[in-house]
């Protein structure tokens, strides 16, 4: 029998016992709805975490620092920093200087290498002032999608004396009641500790000679620290961070300056003091840390390995995110299993309905066989009926699940607002879940139809025709 004829006959048969078949289909729909609702929650939570981590730029960013010798003579590194394995072919610790920067930049899949410039300063916006962590932001951050939600503009140029303010910091700098965006166009004065070079001992001038900012080649002579001030115009205000992540990964801060401008400020950083103590043999610029941006998360592991072999400590969240994905895969699996339980119960309903249909339509099956229906035709007819119930139940279940999801999302939003928190979207019904759920419902229905269909196909037509 052709598919269209089978479908027509199946639909007709289903309409004949409309109440029973509707209840069976409703059972499937409830099963699919629970599956969709639970998996959508899992997917939504995973996407929420992914978004937060991705916005922080952590998936494709590697932080490189000089490897330190511990007081015990062992290579060390804290937290997630990777240190060379014992016995592995790894270079000894080396200075993180311009040569190293160029070497790292030449690695495959490295998009850019930027020095990490971070310092504490006092930000003043009369009459308020705040101690704030300032960070240099690379120009590439503009196109990386990490500044989503920012009000205002990105820096007008690499050397523009402009600043982008984190939303929380903007609130603290402003008087109560003002919205952070009123900062746009205003000037903030930054007061910070600047390095100034000491002249060589033979040339040490009288104390009233003006000091010069430290140049890279003058570091060996040491430097003095003087307070300095500079004004910056606010061009952008970022939304308040929800998960503690920042727009430039490891450089999460309250204020952001163009990276080139931040470098030129010659602000004293922690690594400077260490270098003064031990850099008698080092010539040129040294970096406290470099931020390496990879072409994608997949390239991070290889780049990390290469840099580690150069003799530097590396850190990225690739392992953390990998574990996170494993966790969510297992989480989704369990949610799927719980969701499928309802569908499993619904499948028993299908079996029951179809077995009842065989008893009721025994004579009809006999007639069909007498008229020339092969066992295959009868089997396909029952399969088609199971499949139609699965399809209709699947579609209805997805709609029902989507509705339940919207209600849960709405409830979450109301609850979060009452708690004074932002209301993230914890609900997501991706297209693959819609198609997968419908396909799964049809599959479960067809599997449930195997026994009744086989039983119907094997009916003896002579016996079936005698049945009253």
């Amino acid at each position: 029998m052709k598919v269209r004829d089978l479908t027509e006959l199946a639909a007709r048969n289903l309409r004949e016992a409309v109440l029973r078949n509707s209840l069976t289909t409703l059972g499937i729909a409830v099963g699919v709805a629970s599956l969709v609702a639970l998996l959508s929650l899992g997917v939504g939570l995973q996407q929420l975490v992914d978004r937060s981590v991705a916005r922080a730029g952590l998936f494709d960013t590697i932080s490189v620092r000089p490897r330190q010798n511990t007081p015990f003579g062992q290579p060390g590194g804290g937290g997630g920093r990777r240190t060379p394995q014992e016995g592995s072919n790894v270079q000894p610790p080396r200075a993180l200087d311009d040569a190293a920067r160029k070497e790292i930049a030449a690695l495959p899949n490295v998009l850019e290498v930027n020095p990490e410039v971070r310092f504490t300063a006092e930000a003043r916006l009369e009459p308020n002032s705040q101690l704030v962590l300032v960070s240099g932001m690379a120009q590439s951050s503009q196109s990386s999608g990490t500044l989503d939600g920012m009000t205002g503009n990105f820096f007008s140029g690499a050397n523009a004396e402009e600043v982008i303010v984190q939303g929380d910091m903007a609130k603290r700098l402003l008087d109560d009641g003002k919205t952070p965006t009123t900062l746009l166009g205003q000037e903030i004065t930054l007061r910070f500790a600047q390095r100034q070079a000491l002249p060589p001992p033979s040339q040490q001038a009288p104390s009233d000679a003006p000091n010069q900012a430290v140049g890279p080649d003058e570091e060996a002579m040491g430097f003095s620290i003087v307070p300095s001030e500079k004004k910056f115009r606010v061009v952008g205000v970022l939304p308040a961070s929800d998960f503690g992540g920042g727009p430039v990964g490891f450089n999460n801060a309250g204020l952001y300056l163009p990276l080139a401008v931040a470098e030129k400020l010659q602000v004293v950083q922690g690594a400077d003091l260490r270098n003064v103590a031990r850099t008698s043999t080092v010539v040129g610029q040294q970096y406290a840390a470099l931020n390496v941006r990879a072409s994608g998360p997949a390239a991070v592991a290889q780049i990390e390995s290469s840099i580690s072999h150069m003799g530097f400590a590396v850190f990225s969240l690739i392992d953390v995110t990998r574990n996170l994905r494993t966790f969510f895969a297992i989480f989704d699996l369990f949610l799927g299993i719980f969701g499928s339980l309802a569908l499993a119960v619904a499948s028993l309903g299908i079996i029951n309905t179809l077995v009842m249909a065989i008893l009721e339509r025994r004579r009809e099956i006999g007639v069909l066989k007498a008229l020339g229906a092969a066992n295959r035709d009868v089997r396909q007819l029952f399969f088609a009926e199971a499949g139609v119930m699965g399809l209709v139940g699947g579609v209805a279940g997805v709609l029902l699940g989507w509705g339940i999801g919207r209600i849960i999302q709405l409830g979450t939003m109301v609850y979060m607002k009452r708690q004074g928190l932002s209301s993230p979207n914890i609900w997501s019904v991706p297209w693959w879940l819609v198609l997968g759920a419908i396909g799964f419902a049809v599959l479960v229905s067809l599997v449930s139809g195997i026994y009744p269909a086989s039983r119907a196909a094997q009916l003896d037509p002579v016996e079936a025709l005698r049945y009253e």
Partner: protein
Amino acid sequence: MKPWRGTLRTMNVPENVASTNGFAIRADRVSRHYKMGDALIRAVDQISLEVRAGEFLALLGASGSGKSTLLNLIAGLDRPSSGAILAQGRDLAGMSSEELASHRNQTIGIVFQSFQLLPRMTLEENVELPLRLAEVPRGERPERVSEALNRVGLGARVKHRPPELSGGEQQRAAIARALVNRPMILLADEPTGNLDTKTGEEIMSLIAAIHRPPSGAGRTIIMVTHERALAERFADRIVTLSDGAISREERLR
């Protein structure tokens, strides 16, 4: 009793009826035995029978004589315990279930005592069923259905459902359904058994007209009945069964 074996020569066989060596059906020592507890029931026992193409054969016998079982074997609804049945030259015993289904759909048409129409379908839907199973193109079906229903005089009742019709009309619809795939052989199992005498006569006249139409090809008819008078009036030959074997054979025409 020793089973009867013989060939029946029948007159008035249409020349254009396709068959093998002139025979529509040949049964060779066919048996159908059932086990019921420890007892072996010989419903059909070593029957040999030849039916010429275009012949009208009446199978007569008391209840339980094996005539319906023999008809089911010829229809391919049941398989013999032993022996061979050739329909249009093909051995039914050697056919797969798929081939037997095709035999029931294409080679024969069956009419039952209790009509066996599907009550929730209209007449045209009932008659269309064999066409669906034969995968006849949808475009051809309305004409074929209409032709079959017109032939039995139900052209105006196509949208009615069986419960809305009289017994005679239901049997006419069942005959239309049996003929819609234009089979060469029509098998009728007590076609008048559920009808009053007058209606039974009408149905028999219809079957006789199908056997020998005023124009065009006739069909081989094998009819099971317990009404000798009807058999004598319409059949070319009567074969009487008793205890699963042929007890008597009468050539009428």
